[in-house]
């Protein structure tokens, strides 16, 4: 849902009970903020409809409700796109949303009706949902149709959490290589999605966003792609930049730009380094950002002591091996938050600062800050300066967290802090 919510001229139908869109306000806020940043005057809400599966639907199926919802979506909003999301409930009761959407498509030829298989029990991580989204886009919009190539056009895939400031920085960097970004899917449109096959290359801002899709685009359309890292910090920004430059055949140009950028920012990074040198850091974040943050802190001479990240695969191992080369001794916790593991670790490691989801470390009195910021810059050469200063400011006044820790207590029993933090990990996830 989050991946598509800002698409122009769309209606989103959640084929689910009423709670599955309980987070509507997040979507509404994100969409509105994004519009405001992009200078849109009459700011709109996303159009979100819930079929409201109830007890009757659980017994007799929800087909009727879905048909009614699509009917309402079309008569009310006449959208170009109508996305239908599966849910745990619709999946278990066996509603065939593909077939239902297929039938409805004949009835409403002017609206593209696209089912998306994102049943919650299928995966514990939202990245799987992004994959499902791109599978649907490929199957229902691109449909293997050949389109005319557009010179210099690069698909730039970005997850929802990327701010407009970061979008502009990525677009600026690509334009220095003579490329034009087709920014997908945030604040894009059916037209822009249809242009995906016209691109000469693809890249992504996040390691786990559109990674499979870019491979599909290579297989189906022969579009080469660069899959590297999230461009946060000098090393990752360079790596990301060189990755896409190589695909575009601009290896020489990119080196010139990189050395120019380094020259520009190095004195500024140095002043940040003076404030942060030697500080010990614990990081908790999404897959892309947590690894990126771990590389970023090296720019400032900081030392990694712990890294909590939700997923692990061969790709993550590449990052871990890189980090092994720059940070001497750190714990890796593969966990989707699991605050009880985290507070046990943070309490043991006693870092000087914590980067990432801050709620629990703050209650231990550790200064905390974010590298995820949907409203401000975090990426590219300028983004890292912003982040560095933010981290330093936070460290210099840890007052809020210290006071908080003095007055509140985390809800875990004292005995827990003496246990092995990984005690409850069972073999094979039993």
């Amino acid at each position, binding site marked *: 849902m989050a991946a598509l919510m800002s698409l122009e001229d769309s209606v989103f139908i959640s084929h689910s009970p009423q709670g599955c869109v309980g987070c509507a306000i997040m979507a509404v806020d994100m969409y509105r903020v994004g519009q405001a940043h992009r200078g849109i005057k*009459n700011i709109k809400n996303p159009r979100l409809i819930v079929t409201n599966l109830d*007890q009757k639907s659980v017994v007799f199926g929800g087909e009727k409700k879905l048909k009614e919802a699509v009917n309402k979506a079309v008569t009310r909003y006449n959208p170009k796109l109508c996305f239908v999301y599966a849910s*745990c409930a619709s999946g278990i009761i066996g509603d065939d949303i593909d077939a239902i959407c297929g039938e409805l498509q004949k009835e409403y030829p002017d609206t593209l009706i696209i089912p998306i298989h994102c049943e919650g*029990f299928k995966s514990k991580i939202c990245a799987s949902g992004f994959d499902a989204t791109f599978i649907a886009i490929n199957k229902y919009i691109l449909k293997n149709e050949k389109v005319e190539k557009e010179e210099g056009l690069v698909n730039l895939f970005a997850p929802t959490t990327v701010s407009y400031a970061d979008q502009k920085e990525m677009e600026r960097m690509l334009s220095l290589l003579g490329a034009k970004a087709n920014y997908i899917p945030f604040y894009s449109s059916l037209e822009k999605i249809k242009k995906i096959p016209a691109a000469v290359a693809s890249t992504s801002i996040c390691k786990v966003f559109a990674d499979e899709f870019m491979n599909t685009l290579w297989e189906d359309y022969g579009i080469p792609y660069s899959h590297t890292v999230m461009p946060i910090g000098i090393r990752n920004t360079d790596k990301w930049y060189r990755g896409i430059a190589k695909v575009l055949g601009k290896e020489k140009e990119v080196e010139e730009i990189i050395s120019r950028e380094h020259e520009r920012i190095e004195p500024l990074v140095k002043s940040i380094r003076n404030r942060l040198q030697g500080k010990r850091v614990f990081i908790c974040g999404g897959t892309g950002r947590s690894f990126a943050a771990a590389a970023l802190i090296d720019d400032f001479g900081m030392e990694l002591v712990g890294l909590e990240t939700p997923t692990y695969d061969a790709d993550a191992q590449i990052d871990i091996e890189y980090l092994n080369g720059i940070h001497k001794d750190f714990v890796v916790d593969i966990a989707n938050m699991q605050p009880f593991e985290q507070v046990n670790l943070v309490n043991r490691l006693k870092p000087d600062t914590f980067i990432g989801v801050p709620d629990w470390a703050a209650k231990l009195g550790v200064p905390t800050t974010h590298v995820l910021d949907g409203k401000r810059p975090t990426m590219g050469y300028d983004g890292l300066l912003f982040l560095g200063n933010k981290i330093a400011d936070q460290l210099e006044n840890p007052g809020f967290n210290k006071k908080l820790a003095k007055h509140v207590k985390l*809800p875990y029993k004292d005995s827990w802090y003496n246990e092995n933090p990984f005690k409850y990990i069972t073999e094979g996830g039993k």
Partner: protein
Amino acid sequence: MAKLLDKQRYKCALGAMQSVQAIERALPVLHSGPGCAQKLSDTNGSSGYFSPNIFPCTSINEKDVVFGGVKKLHSTIDNALKVVDADLYVVLTGCIPEIVGDDTGEVVSEFADSDKPVIYAPTAGFKGNNYKGHEQVVDAIIDQYLKKSDEKEKGLVNIWADVPYQDLFWLGNIRELEKLVASLGLTPNTIFGYKRGIKNIDKITKAEFNLLVSPWVGLGSMKKMEKKFNIPFLHYKTLPIGATETSKFLREVGKFAGVDNEKIESVIKENEDYYYYLIERYADLFLENRVINKQFTVVADAQYALGITKFLVNDLGLIPAKQFVVDDTPSKYREDIKKEFENLNFNIKAEASFETDGYKIHEEIKNHDYHGYPLVLGGYYEKEVTESLKGNFINISWPVQDKVVLDSHYAGYSGGIRLIEDIYTVAVQRFN
């Protein structure tokens, strides 16, 4: 139950995890899919002692859908008892276990002898919204935890109001209702918020009566307690906001509790005097037509739609356009609530529409002649439509984005003053 929801105004029954969260040191233990708690948590003051990310969850996967999740549930409860320091563990079920038929009650009963109480409430999303889920949680406490008490505490009154977190002002409101009841010389007892918790839950059955301040939410639980524990209840339908309604409230509660009339009137006089001292200081602003138009619409649950309508009509002298009740009020309560909307001063009647379809609501707002710029008090969705009409918008009902509320309230005399402050803070920033 409502049909499709375009711009939905509530969550599902599992949203009752927030009702549990509002009970100090009560921990929701979720038997649900991996995304449920994420989707059902807001950022409106929910990072307390237990934040939603701390709630233990079975995080059901495809395998559990096929083979059932009872084993996982058992170990999740078992380990939560070992690691998390809580007073009450409330197991809540999502859609999946109730569709595949996990016997959650059976698993929970295996913890009957644990050091801390473990109870459970069926809160599958497809069975109802979080207003219903809230009632399920209170019912679970009544049925599985409370014991009948022959001993009564004189003057002790249990106060119940609307749904924590769904109601942005829940904490401030319930504290204000406590203060009002205490001002009559009674002893209020509530279970939600700071320093209430299990110790107050234990006092519930000692109360002389239950006071329900809500158009309908929680009425079932009151009846249950009347039958099971012989506790009578007073159902006061209107959340009292401002002087007129709060004075009415004090008179009715006082009368029900047998409080001396003189005492009631002296409390009312003292409060009204101060209230009108404040109003008088700003009367020039309220009397100035230029600042605000006369017609308003509330888009909210029954509680605020009714409470705010009465306040704006009876205290501020505004005129109600159509009011929208968006909480999917069960049809058996609707006639009674409609009558309340028609019972306003100077024979004014407000038309109330029970509507969960946001599209229709917005169409009606757009098509109504407010004789100028409308005043709309509603959920965040109404910001768009109000802006398009150049009206004044105040975000008072879920979903909320425009407001940060720590312990502010709209209930009572002081609550009316807060609402006036909020409305006019918006109005004076405008150039129209």
